[in-house]
């Protein structure tokens, strides 16, 4: 009888590959020159390259030498790769900039400039300007929240849970700052030049996103050539006729500051009328909402739980016929409507006169790597009378924090009935994988 290999055989067979001749390798590595040609030559098992290949390599090496001698840092090839990760890993950030709005009653194309400033400190401290009045701001520290409105001379304050503050901080970082610097539209950044911003020599990258009827959005980011960190960013909206106007500009980005800036504390300033509320933080979970006829929709928490799989809390209902469930639910990456995700309904709960849905959407075509860098998705919901399509940008959390965030998000966003426990990360991953028994 022929003996069949087992898992133990496979492990033993692989033992032969564990030999690490690290010392020899490090000797070779230290001898290695930072150009590709030396590696090609060191490969003793390869035949000599044809003469024309050698000539090209010599030209390339010469070009590299000229590049180096002309004072350009040869290690500047950061591009925008890593910018998102760097921002996502920062402990604190301070961003100052301007946004532009049409002047009410002004001439066509006339814009007014509204300065803004955001300071966030993980996990739960934030201070951001709000509204159009420069004196308005919101501040919170994971225990209390103060919202100061300089226009009405009022201040709303109340307790805020550490989790709500954490979600708010992550939304500011991921939606406002990362979104403001890189954008969440699909497409690649292209280097368009070199510039000096805030006394920093920066590479300038551009990304264009085509919109309907010939309109487009152009995002520009300045990246420090030495550190690879973003220095400034701008967004422009363009029309089919080529007319372009500024929409948003980040003038300075401070990362990992050693000291918290001198900002307003989490107390109501003197001279403001105080409004106490227990409703603090309810807005932070809401992504978008609206009505189409009798039908209303709202999207709340959306979390990226693994490469591509997204957990979404959403509500969609025909007020005239509350028992009707949507007949079409399509979730796909923005710009790739044909790559629909599989819908795994988790729970549909009747709370305060509404059906709230928790859904898990996972890449359905098996090629999950395609979705790793998609930041934005569209949820298309069809009812009997109308269809609606809304943008969803899920929040990302560190893997170590994710399991707890998933439980807290389900409990605090739309509390499930006692008998209906929130789904754990493991349960969600088992659903995605199609059966835990495979593990």
């Amino acid at each position, binding site marked *: 009888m*022929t*003996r*069949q*290999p*087992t*898992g133990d*055989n*496979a*492990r*033993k*067979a*692989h033992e*032969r*590959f*564990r*030999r*690490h*001749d*690290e010392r*020899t*390798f*490090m000797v*070779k*590595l*230290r001898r*290695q*020159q*930072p*150009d*590709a040609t*030396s*590696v090609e030559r*060191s*490969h003793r*098992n*390869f*035949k000599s390259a044809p003469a024309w290949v050698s000539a090209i390599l010599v030209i390339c090496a010469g070009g590299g030498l000229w590049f180096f001698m002309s004072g350009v840092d*040869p*290690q500047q*090839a950061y*591009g925008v*790769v*890593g910018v998102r*990760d760097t921002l996502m890993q920062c402990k604190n950030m301070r961003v100052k900039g301007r946004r532009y709005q049409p002047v009410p009653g002004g001439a066509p194309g006339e814009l007014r400039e509204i300065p803004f400033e955001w300071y966030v400190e993980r996990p739960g401290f934030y201070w951001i300007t709000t509204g159009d009045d420069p004196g308005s701001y919101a501040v919170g520290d994971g225990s209390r929240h103060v919202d100061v409105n300089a226009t009405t001379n009022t201040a709303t304050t109340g307790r805020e849970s550490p989790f709500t503050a954490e979600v708010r901080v992550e939304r500011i970082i991921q939606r406002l700052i990362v979104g403001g610097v890189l954008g969440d539209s699909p497409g690649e950044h292209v280097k368009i030049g070199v510039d000096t911003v805030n006394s920093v020599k920066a590479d300038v990258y551009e990304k264009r996103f085509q919109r309907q009827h010939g309109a487009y959005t152009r995002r520009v980011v300045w990246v420090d050539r030495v550190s*690879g960190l973003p220095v400034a960013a701008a967004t422009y909206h363009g029309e089919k006729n080529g007319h372009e106007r500024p929409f948003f500009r980040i003038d300075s980005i401070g990362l990992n500051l050693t000291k918290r800036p001198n900002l307003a504390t989490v107390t109501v300033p003197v001279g403001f009328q105080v409004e106490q509320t227990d409703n603090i933080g309810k807005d932070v979970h809401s992504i978008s909402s609206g009505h189409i006829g009798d039908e209303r929709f709202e999207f709340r928490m959306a979390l990226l739980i*693994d*490469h*591509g*799989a997204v957990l979404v809390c959403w509500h969609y209902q025909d007020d005239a016929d509350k028992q009707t469930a949507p007949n079409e639910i399509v979730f796909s990456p923005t710009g790739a409507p044909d790559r629909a995700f599989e819908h795994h309904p988790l729970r549909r709960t009747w709370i305060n006169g509404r059906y709230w849905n928790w859904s898990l959407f*996972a890449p359905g075509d*098996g090629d*999950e*790597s395609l979705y*790793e860098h998609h930041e934005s998705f569209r949820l298309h919901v069809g009812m009997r009378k109308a269809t609606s399509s809304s943008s969803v940008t899920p929040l990302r959390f560190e893997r170590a924090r994710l399991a707890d965030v998933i439980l807290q998000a389900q409990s605090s966003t739309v509390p499930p009935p006692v008998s209906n426990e929130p789904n754990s990360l493991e349960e969600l*991953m088992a659903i*995605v*994988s*199609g059966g835990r028994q*495979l*593990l």
Partner: protein
Amino acid sequence: MTKLDTNLDDSHIVRAVLEGDTEAFVVVYRRYNALVQSLCWDATQDVAMAQDLSQDVFLRAYSRLASLPDSERFAKWLVGVTRNVCREWRRSKSRDRHDFLGQAPDAAQPTNDMDALNDKLLQAIAGLPERDRVVIHAHYLDGENAADMAESLGLSRAGYYKQLKAALGRLARELGSKEAMLE
């Protein structure tokens, strides 16, 4: 020697190397050498050659690190470099007029039934599609951490386990087994 935390992820290590810390590259060498060796063995069927070739893979990866488009995808990129080096080795070998007609003298010769069984297994793995080979090698080389490695190879954890199950199924069929004995 670098003081770099060996638990750092690939993107941090890549950045450290690009910033001039050559020694940091040893961390990714330790992390992926077994996987690269196993893939080189697929191409060469020769342990000694696979070890030599894997060093060439890392030297090439080091010299071209600045061209890595996404440092998070280092492992996936490294597998691509391995594939290219192995392809070039095959081309070089096919042009070599001094090729041995028989088996290379340094090729491992099975010395007992167990070795023969292990060789049979590895040869069967070598006959699978590349993606199957990568997940199987990662699984048997890195055990519990394999899913982490697979993530950086462009698969989610769930996708990794799906791929692994399918790959083990194909391997079992390749070995003529009616059921998957490999876990």
